[in-house]
């Protein structure tokens, strides 16, 4: 049985970012990934590196997102130098479009309180229709205005994932597409991980299996109360540059396609699409950019978000079985740089980043225990 410093279970964006962070620090890492039949948010997401509006209930999440956003350009350069793969990351700032005066003013007050809660580190501007038109000349008449933040950006999440996989291998790590891990056995201070046809021995184990963490976490004294939440996305034919900055629901990729997102649906483990949802997404996109009425949609898909009960991440070290960790979140693109540069060092033994202290599963036990 091969032995590693770390077994990382799950090769999506969260597992791959952590594994890359560990491998680049010189640890022997093995990524065990289920394969093509798994639910894989990392291959179906929208690709925003997004800060604005996040963390209203827990402002440290805003700090964590800002930290990651600020590390993203460096990660992109590093991965390009190492692997030749460009993530297409750009941070021109981003806008959230509002369709009524009420929406615009409630957006403003929510962002103002977020800005206060972060002592002004999260900053933003409100734009009226004319100011927005300066940024997006094709903006629709029914868009009343927008919030703008210089902290936002976007990237190609598929290239990011490929670059991380290549980077792991470059640093001597192993990636195995091995079918689902069913069992993790703590043994004499280390772990034996059972895949379908093989076993791996590791001194430490990181559960980064997305929705799969639900079943794995209890085996090493952790809990991961996750539920799927579906998002559907449409993508158009490639076009000349039209939208120079990302918006919450629309962005133009490096190749010129426009991505139109996305829905939030509670439909269990169904990652299909539904016409009425797709048509709602398309109509909202056409209101934002009326010129889109003319374009062809070439693909549409659904993917499942990895959601905790409050939507915030879960990062926790097992107390019962030291050396076991769980990590999951529903902004794995945004947080990729923080996962590489700040979370992986914690998993390797450094002090934890201050921002992640609220994100253990304890907050869910407390909630269940508190009478309402």
């Amino acid at each position, binding site marked *: 049985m091969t032995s590693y410093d770390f077994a990382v279970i799950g090769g999506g964006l969260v597992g791959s970012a952590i594994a890359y962070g560990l491998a680049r620090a010189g640890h022997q890492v093995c990524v065990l990934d289920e394969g093509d039949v798994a639910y894989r948010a990392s291959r179906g997401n929208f690709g925003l590196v997004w800060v604005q509006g996040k963390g209203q209930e827990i402002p440290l999440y805003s700090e964590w997102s800002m930290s990651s956003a600020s590390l993203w350009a460096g990660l992109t350069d590093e991965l390009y130098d190492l692997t030749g793969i460009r993530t297409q990351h750009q941070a021109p700032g981003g806008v959230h479009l509002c369709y009524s005066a009420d929406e615009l003013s409630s957006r403003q007050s929510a962002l103002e309180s977020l800005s206060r809660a972060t002592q002004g580190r999260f900053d933003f501007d409100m734009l009226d229709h004319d100011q927005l038109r300066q940024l997006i000349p*094709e903006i629709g008449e029914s868009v009343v205005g927008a919030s703008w933040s210089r902290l936002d950006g976007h990237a190609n999440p598929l290239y990011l994932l490929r670059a991380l996989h290549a980077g792991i291998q470059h640093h001597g790590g192993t990636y195995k597409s091995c079918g689902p891990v069913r069992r993790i056995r703590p043994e004499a201070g280390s772990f034996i991980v059972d895949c379908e046809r093989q076993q791996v021995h590791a001194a430490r184990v990181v559960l980064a299996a997305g929705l799969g963490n639900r079943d794995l976490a209890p085996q090493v004294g952790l809990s991961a109360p996750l539920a799927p939440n579906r998002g559907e996305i449409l993508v158009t*034919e*490639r*076009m*000349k540059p*039209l939208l120079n900055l990302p918006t919450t629901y629309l962005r133009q990729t*490096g*190749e*010129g396609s426009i991505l139109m997102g996305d829905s939030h649906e509670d439909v269990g483990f169904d990652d299909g699409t539904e016409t009425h949802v797709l048509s709602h997404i398309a109509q909202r996109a056409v209101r934002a950019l009326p*010129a*889109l009425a*003319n*374009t*062809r949609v070439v693909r549409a898909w659904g993917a499942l978000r990895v959601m905790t009960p409050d939507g915030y991440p879960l990062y926790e070290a097992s107390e019962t079985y030291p050396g076991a960790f769980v990590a999951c979140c529903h902004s794995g693109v945004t947080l990729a740089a923080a996962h590489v540069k700040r979370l992986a060092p914690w998993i390797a033994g450094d002090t934890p980043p201050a921002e992640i202290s609220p994100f253990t599963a304890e907050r869910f036990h407390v909630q269940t225990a508190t009478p309402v």
Partner: protein
Amino acid sequence: MFKRLPLSDTTCNRDVTITFDDLTVTAREGETVAAALLAAGMRNCRTTPVSESPRAPYCMMGVCFECLMEVDGVPNVQACQMLVREGMQVRSQQGARRLVHDHA
């Protein structure tokens, strides 16, 4: 480079005139735009959106999207999936389509 096979089907031998960029091309009714233009000696139908390298129809059955052209003002039409019509105006496409000011 390409030549037409003899056809036994008599419904398919009427001539149809189309234009390709600034050329006038005689096509045969029942042919696709891609087939007609390849028979007329077209080498490239477009350049790609990202690297702008030249491309030509490839699979001729609707799956590869190499044959994208502008047909009667509509960009990104699969030329292998579109039958020729009298008077049709076909243009090669340079890079990605423009969205704004399309007269589709």
